[in-house]
């Protein structure tokens, strides 16, 4: 996934979760916005809503199922969900369907 697309998907998910937040706590659409961590605005419900929304959009974009809601990944120190920037970089590493996926699909009985 290219960076522009990844960033757009992250910002789309931010738009969705911002509707649920009071104006003073809405996430800014900038690379250094903290998502998870001591200075993050999202509580557990907000974070799960954000991650699942993003997961759906990334799945649609890559046309393969993507799992982002991983409690380990959320809490680890070097979590990709720390900031918008780290999350975007992580999404850039995700690939769409491979040739192997296409072959598997063809051989389905």
């Amino acid at each position: 996934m290219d960076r522009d697309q990844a960033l757009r998907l992250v910002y789309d998910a931010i738009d969705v979760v911002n509707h649920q937040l009071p104006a003073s706590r809405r996430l800014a659409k900038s690379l250094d916005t903290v998502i998870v961590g001591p200075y993050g605005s999202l509580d557990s419900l907000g974070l799960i809503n954000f991650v699942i929304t993003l997961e759906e959009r990334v799945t649609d974009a890559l046309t393969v199922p993507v799992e982002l809601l991983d409690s380990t990944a959320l809490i680890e120190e070097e979590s990709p969900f720390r900031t918008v920037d780290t999350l975007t970089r992580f999404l850039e590493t995700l690939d769409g369907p491979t040739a192997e996926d296409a072959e598997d699909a063809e051989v389905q009985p």
Partner: protein
Amino acid sequence: MSSVSSVVEITRTRSWRNVDAVTYGPLYFLADFNIETLARLVGNSVLPGTETRMALAAPVMVQLASGSPGPEWSAVVWSQPDSSIASFRRAVTYEEPDADRAIEETREYAASIGRFARGTRATFVPTWVLPPWHRGYGPLDFRPGLGIAHLLARMNLALSDALRDEPNVFVLDAARWIASVGPRAWSDKLWFATKSPFTAAVFEQAASDLAAAIAGLNGGARRLVILDLDDVLWGGIVGEVGWQGLNLGGHDPAGEAFADFQRALKGLTRRGIQLAIASRNDEAVALEAIDRHPEMALRRADFAGWKINWTDKAQNVVDLLAEIGLGAESAVFIDDSASERARVGSAVPGVLVPDWPGDPSKYREALASLRCFDVPFITREDRARSGMYAAERTRRTSLSAAGDLQAWLESLDVVVTVESLTSATLDRATQLFNKTNQMNLATRRLANTELMAWAAADDHSVLTFRVADRFGDSGLTGLVGLEFEGPRARLVDFVLSCRVMGRNVEETLLHVAAAHARVRGAAELVAEFRPTSRNAPCLEFFRRSGFRAESDGRFVWGLSTRYERPPWVTVRDHSDVTRAGNPA
């Protein structure tokens, strides 16, 4: 003629979604799942500032039995069918369904909601839904006596039927929210993580519908759609191609889309919403198209007014609002031109100016998605309103021809029928009460249950007035509310639709109010004006009414003197409110 620069008052331009929540009251959520996301959307986005509260975690029946936090609260009661109805829980796991028992349990559930709702301002109950992937018995799922989908449909209908007579309960169609969102509506992952079965997208649909319903309950529904003509009601520029060259109807996809859009607009008029035209065109050419094109679904009689000329469109909108007697907050402006939309949006604060699709095949959907027309009930006056506006146009024409205002008033044969508020007139009276701004003494806003409760008090009276003349019946268009405190009668509410202003109906209302107060033993009638940004016409009326002005805003009439009615107005007193030895 009002100028754009002086139009109305400076109001905060707002979309229908960001309405002022301060007046709408707090919202209480009862659910058997985690409904926090919906509460956050309501409190932070669609009705910002609304106080929200979640019922304590417990089965919904227990939450209902615990009652409402207070009568000023509205509530949302949202349950899952297999949690609330034990028979359905068995059916959905493919035990043999007992439909009769499920319907009986549904009625018991509805009765609990009814009891709870009587302690709220309004209660909203989303229908029951199942996940889209739940196929039940497949091709048999709509078979009576077997299918799960069939049983759920019957339960939803039974729920709605059982709540029909609760005037402040509104059953909302949750299936439409699910369908709007599509495959992303349901998330088992979200359920297992948060105990919320629906994704945020579903809650956004729900929140939008809730906000629209609450706005409608508080008189905030839009009542007028002002339309451009070229490439809005038909394809093409009528001034260039003539009515015969317009793309409308026929077998052309765009032409069919325009015709469909007109039919959708016509449908709005049957809900009491008015249409008007603001178009840059030669009036005669445009009206010829409206009169003669065989595929027009809308004719002249369907429009409350029009400004078809080469004047600034924002000025035309202002003039239309003044002519029709509605405020900017009542109106929606639809134009295919982004620049015209921007002009009207900035120059006429309060008018809703939605972005409009460039493709006419999307017009009908765009109109339906506005959600700004939601009202808590449809009255007889709503369905007849187009005819009333057509009659009003005829009245204005006859006034122009008459020249002498007094002679014209005397020729109208105005008949005012008064009766006490009844359950039959409650819906229309509440609508009038909450929608009227200009001729409104106190501008109180009450739900229908609140108005009826106020009227039922021993020391209160609420009188309603129907107005008709030789041009037609304007329906229930006036209301007074009176409070009796020993020798003093207080005129709490004085409400009159702008459609009947200026025909001496105002004086007739005071005549009846004074006569009724005398019957009730009062010695004076006191009216206290409460100013808003919109009701200056009411203050002006009371200043010239003959009532004694004790201060700016306090007016008194000594009831030892009759307040005479205009002799050319006939009063029919159906409830004998003015008699008992004191004939009107």
